[in-house]
């Protein structure tokens, strides 16, 4: 297990919105099915004292933590306020925040993640589906029915593509140790390297599927940092190039970032790269 297990107590920030309440239900259904603790409290400023899906709601994370034993939160706060809520959670002493919210302004994400780091708080996301350790813990919005318990870690920048790959693995009889969606935004908390470092420490994980996208070089940095066998898939080989970043983008990237050259570099590092998602189970079977 990485990031948490059955005993992890969870808070939902942004609990009373449509998404928040919907997913409190799904997370707690999952927790009941595996004998876990699940979501113990919700937080929405101004809605303290209510109850949502059988869970008490507080105005602040601090108040929630005074009443409940929790170490992690899942965040559904609307984009404009999400950066502040991440800082609130980190300040109150949470160990882990899974930020599901999409469309957070990148300057907010950068500051909030920077602040969380100084408080010793780990952030996954934003703009991510969260994580699922089959049989143990679900933090976020991943559909649990596609997964099965096993020895393959999955780490991905994309939500739905992750479900696709998990579905392929499960159908091929390959179970997963933990599935982590790290988010597709330009600035994210946990990177491939961070999550792979956790997989490396995890006795349950024997191999990893890495699902990347065009842009940046987080995939290469991740691969460099681990000895685990890796099957990779990079989406966006045919994506139209984004020319909007001008000089600085070109200088920083220096030819890095597009999917084709990224695939070349990964292969040069000895990684098995699938040309389509359906090839991944075959590669994993060879690696195990």
């Amino acid at each position, binding site marked *: 297990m990485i990031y948490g297990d059955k005993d992890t107590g969870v808070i939902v920030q942004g609990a009373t919105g449509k998404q928040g309440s*919907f997913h409190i239900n799904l997370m707690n259904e999952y927790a009941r099915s595996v004998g876990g603790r699940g979501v113990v409290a919700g937080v929405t400023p101004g809605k303290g004292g209510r109850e949502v899906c059988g869970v008490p709601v507080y105005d602040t994370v601090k108040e929630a933590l005074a009443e409940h034993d929790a170490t992690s939160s899942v965040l559904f706060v609307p*984009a*404009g306020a999400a950066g502040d809520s991440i800082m609130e959670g980190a300040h109150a002493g949470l160990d882990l925040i899974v930020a599901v919210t999409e*469309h*957070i*302004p*990148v*300057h907010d994400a*950068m*500051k909030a*993640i*920077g*602040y969380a780091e100084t408080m010793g708080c780990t952030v996954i996301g934003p703009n991510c589906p969260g994580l699922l350790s089959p049989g143990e813990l679900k933090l976020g*919005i*991943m*559909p*649990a029915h*596609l997964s099965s318990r096993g020895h393959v870690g999955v780490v*991905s*920048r*994309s*939500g*739905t*593509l992750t*479900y*696709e790959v998990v*579905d392929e693995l499960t159908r091929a009889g390959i179970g997963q140790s933990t599935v982590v969606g790290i988010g*597709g935004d*330009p*600035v994210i908390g946990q*990177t491939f390297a961070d999550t792979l470092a956790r997989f490396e420490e995890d006795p349950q994980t024997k191999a990893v599927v890495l699902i990347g*996208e065009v*842009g*940046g*070089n*987080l995939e290469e*940095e991740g691969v460099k940092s681990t000895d685990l066998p890796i099957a990779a*898939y990079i*989406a*966006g*080989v*045919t*994506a*139209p190039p984004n*020319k*909007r*970043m*001008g*000089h*600085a*983008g*070109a*200088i*920083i990237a*220096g030819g890095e970032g597009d*999917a084709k050259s990224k695939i070349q570099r990964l292969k040069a590092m000895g990684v098995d790269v699938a*040309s*389509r*998602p*359906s090839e991944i189970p075959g590669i994993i079977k060879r690696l195990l």
Partner: protein
Amino acid sequence: MKLLEFEAKELFKQHGIQVPRGVLISDHEEAVLNLRKVGPNVVVKAQVDVGGRGKAGGVLMADTDTAVIAARELFAREIKGVKVARVLIEERLDIQHEYYVSITIDRSTKHPVVLFADTGGVNIEETAKTNPDAIRKVSFTPLLRNIPRFLLRELIRDAPAEVGETINKLYHVFCDRDALLAEINPLVTTPQGVYAADAKLIIDDNALARQEIAVNRDLTRREREAERHGFSYVELDGSIGVIGNGAGLTMSTLDLIEHFGGKAANFLDVGGGADKDRVKYAVELVADMPDVKVIIVNLLGGITRCDEVARGIIEAGVEQPVIVRLAGTNEKEGKEILAGHGYQMLGSMDEAVKAAVEVTA
């Protein structure tokens, strides 16, 4: 969204960065009226959003006698296919030295990164390739309001201190305006001080509302329409229309189309929790492009209800064949509904994409 030079310079000015004296005109008649404000020697610059504008003939040198002719010339011209609607006439600076500076975000460190070169101007990308050491780079925690002075010194070395102060002001622009990129190329020294001779600013699309920008000009008509509904939508030049949920799955569908020898005409990402009306609208929007011969709908997820999606596709009732791959809640019902109306629903992404490519082959 990318701002035009004159818009970026207006914001620079508000943050205390010196920019050349200038007037913005929308026809050459206005040039006659305004020339005196700018002064004997001028630069006449087309306000178009294209890279390499100078080399493409969008910037002309002129004086009081020739400025109107230069402006008329630019209004009659297209710069890399873009019509010139506005022209900026600026005083010509007495340039002593040109520098390059830009601020952006480094994805690996998650920190702002400042790039600086002693030699600015049009050849900066060439410099980046042939002499990368000439471009210096510093990055630091985003929790600071100012760039630490020691880092500024490390960055600019022998350049005048005023250059460093201007870079710090540019950092304020970068933060306060939610910029993904703030660039001055060239940043010039003159006997009158340091000036931003050109200006580039790209604003984070997720922050347009709080920057009080109402319309994202970077989008086409259909793209803007799609954005209004919370879709992301991009047009390409093939014949297969693509609808997916999530950027990764949608991109992967495009890659698979190419893998099986087809070409996508466009793609639309419906995002999470697509209901009947959203699916209907998405199908209509994708089908609206005349090049689209077949549409593939590839949706996967926990909260997507397949029966809703199926009803949306049927209600749209577009002329083109629609090939569907759905996985989620109520999968069986969705399949039955679609089959009842003559639509194909396939079990895997590979099968669905192959079927779509066959239609266009």
